[in-house]
């Protein structure tokens, strides 16, 4: 199969869905002729015109609120691009309260069929306000779905699914993944929302990860393998809904869990995942659940400090050994 990058895979998903369904359109800053700052919307303006690939003012409330309005008013499927995931902070009301609650509040009538795409993560010298992984903010939300693909294949398949989904989907792409190449079918396929993928089988410990961290987890698992420790790596892919079945099956097998994410630990995704496991798999657990995550500090600018800040394969290995010892 041909190999393309994660960014190209996203681009293909957008193109195919826009061809298939003329209610799909794009809104965001510099997504038009410029093609988006990570190139994800490249060529779409030329193909679909400015009506469907809309450069917006620097107005995130208007972008997301406008998308909610267009969807609620009937039948539109806007795909919004936030320039960086950090900027969810200026439109939490629109995502968390409007997109997430307007269906319920209004007795179920409008489908808020929007997708909010946002590039997250540290990539070397972005600093506290340009490097965040804010997914945990939405975990507590209601009415939202949330996807975090780690491969080009999933990027395409999940984005297509998100666009076709009638519910609002927050879609986080890791900046460092855009250039990652992988096999991606040229034709139409969907990756089901709410299904995790077992990336490597193992029997001693379960490592749960998503987005960029999946690759660190696999790296860790391969090193552990050499040391005689068999780690199972699960790529969650979908944070809302979580694929509890796959998680629980693995925990039942290994009895030990490490959760890895790039965002800081306190109140992060790891908290919910850990809590749900200890609620439902208590008897199967042979040791504490470790969270390998960034410390609870803002993201430092200095690339040297940033490296210390970020979780990586080595820290995952330490985490695994910790839960195996206890």
């Amino acid at each position, binding site marked *: 199969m041909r190999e393309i990058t994660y960014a190209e895979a996203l681009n293909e998903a957008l193109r195919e869905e826009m061809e298939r369904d003329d209610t799909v359109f794009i809104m965001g800053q510099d997504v038009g002729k410029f093609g988006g700052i990570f190139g994800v919307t490249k060529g779409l303006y030329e193909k679909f015109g400015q009506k469907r690939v809309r450069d917006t003012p620097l107005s995130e409330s208007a972008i997301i609120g406008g998308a909610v309005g267009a969807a609620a008013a009937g039948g539109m499927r806007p795909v919004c691009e936030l320039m960086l995931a950090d900027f969810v902070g200026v439109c939490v009301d629109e995502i968390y309260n*409007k997109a997430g609650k307007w269906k319920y*509040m209004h*007795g179920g009538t409008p489908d808020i069929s929007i997708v909010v795409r946002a590039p997250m993560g540290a990539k070397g010298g972005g600093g506290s306000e340009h490097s965040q992984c804010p997914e945990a903010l939405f975990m507590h939300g209601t009415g939202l779905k949330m996807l975090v693909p780690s491969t080009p294949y999933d990027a395409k398949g999940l984005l297509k699914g998100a666009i076709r989904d009638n519910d609002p989907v927050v879609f986080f792409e890791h900046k460092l993944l855009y250039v990652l190449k992988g096999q991606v079918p040229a034709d139409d396929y969907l990756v089901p929302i709410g299904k995790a993928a077992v990336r490597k089988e193992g029997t001693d410990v379960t490592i749960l990860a998503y987005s960029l961290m999946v690759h660190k987890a696999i790296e860790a698992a391969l090193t552990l393998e050499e040391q005689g420790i068999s780690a199972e790596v699960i790529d969650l892919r979908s944070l809302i809904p979580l694929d509890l079945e796959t998680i629980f099956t693995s925990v039942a097998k290994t009895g030990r869990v490490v959760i890895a994410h790039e965002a800081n630990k306190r109140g992060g995704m790891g908290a919910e995942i850990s809590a749900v496991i200890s609620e439902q798999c208590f008897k199967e657990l042979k040791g504490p659940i470790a969270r390998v995550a960034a410390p609870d500090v803002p993201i430092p600018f200095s690339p040297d400090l940033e490296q210390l800040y970020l979780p990586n394969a080595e820290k995952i290995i330490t985490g695994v050994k910790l839960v195996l010892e206890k």
Partner: protein
Amino acid sequence: MEITKSLMLELYEKMLLNRIVEEEMAKLVIEKKIFGALHLGIGHEALSVGATLPMRKDDYLVFSHRGVGHSLTKGIPPSQIVGEFMGRSIGCSKGKGGVHLSDYSRGVLGISGSQGGNFVIAAGAGLRAKMKGTDQVAMCFFGEGTSNRGPFHEGVNMAAVWKLPVIFVCENDTYSFSTHQKQVMLIDNVADRAASYGIPGVVVDGNDVLAVYQAVNQAVERARAGEGPTIIEGKTYRWCGHHEFEDGTKYRDKAEIEAWKQKCPIIRVEKQLINYGTATKKELKQIEEQVKENIQKELELANNSPVPKPEELFTDVYANPEVFQRGISL
């Protein structure tokens, strides 16, 4: 445009409907049948009715917390509005929204609990109409106080740049809760802010239903013709408290309130109808009787409606409900 007798009578009837339904709702608060915050629009009727009536059924309506009159004018039956506030299943949002009224079959998209969230939603509805190539418009009501929130700026600007069919209607009643306009902005007219976006801004007497109707109608025509948004500001006054938990006298002079009551928009149109010989007292009385009779029936419907079934708690969260997971605990 020509003001016909039938239009005037319709405005009159809708204003009465608006007024009386709200008066009844105020009683239901005292009877503890309506819960939560009820924000009465009594005094605002020339705006709620005069600005909503020029809309078609398929136009989009987004209002503020003071939206009972607008909802009635857009055609939601009183039983469904009052029932909603009573948390009953007859409610237009099945009792799940309360003050967050909506009726998607009539283009009523709802309100934003966070004041000001409505500007951007309305822009989005306008965008939908424009992209679909329909000639629908979106109407967005808001208070002068709310015009100081960021999304006003973002929503109006986006609508302006994209020439979206949106009419932003400011119900300027001088107060935002207890706060006087002069405390929170230096200019007198919210509509003057239209200049920041390169669109027309119009100030009208917000107690003159005909003036409101005409100004809005013109803006609607402009919007339908693809010429973009307008800000219309009507100066009016709310007679009651900000909501039914306070009576509005702590921060406003009795004399000021009285003076505005003298300018009652309903009596004003009543006088116009009679003075110009358009209608007789008897005709108006008949309309009033009919309105009241209808309201009583509707109230009964609301009152007889059951509360939502327990399982309703869990429905309507997602379009694809299989998402739901609640785990073992409670």
